[in-house]
């Protein structure tokens, strides 16, 4: 089963609806950032990521 990324927050999961924000997910995504410590990450801050996890950099509908 292909992994999907949320069209809104870009969180990666296998679900049709994002487990974090309940938005639609898409199987068409690229790039990856794994945030392990959002409180100490400039990258996470730049991307408005506040929860640890795996996120796509780009999500197409």
């Amino acid at each position, binding site marked *: 089963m292909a992994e999907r990324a949320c069209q809104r927050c870009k969180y990666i999961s296998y679900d049709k609806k994002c487990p974090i924000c309940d938005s639609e997910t898409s199987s068409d995504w690229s*790039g990856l*950032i794994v945030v*392990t*410590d959002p409180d100490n*990450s400039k*990258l996470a801050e730049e991307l408005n990521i506040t929860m640890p996890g*795996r996120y796509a*950099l*780009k999500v197409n509908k």
Partner: protein
Amino acid sequence: MFYAMRVLIGQEKNVAALLAQSIKHEDTGISAILAPESMQGYIFVESDKMLDMRHPALRVPNLRSLVEGDVEFDELKSFLNPEPAMVNIIKG
């Protein structure tokens, strides 16, 4: 600080995920791992400590080596928003 690491081509996302798992309960200073689609054979690591590749948590399959010297945040920014113009248009 931001560092580049060489990884086996095609394994960028896998190595990033494995590394994140491996460092989970370790004191490496790593806060994020970036695998941009357009950078074949490389991943980037954000850490508030100097990375020591002898640290056992940094030994994961297909992770080759640390690139000497650090990377500027501005150099990574271009990877974060592959379509900023479009987003701005949509949001009005």
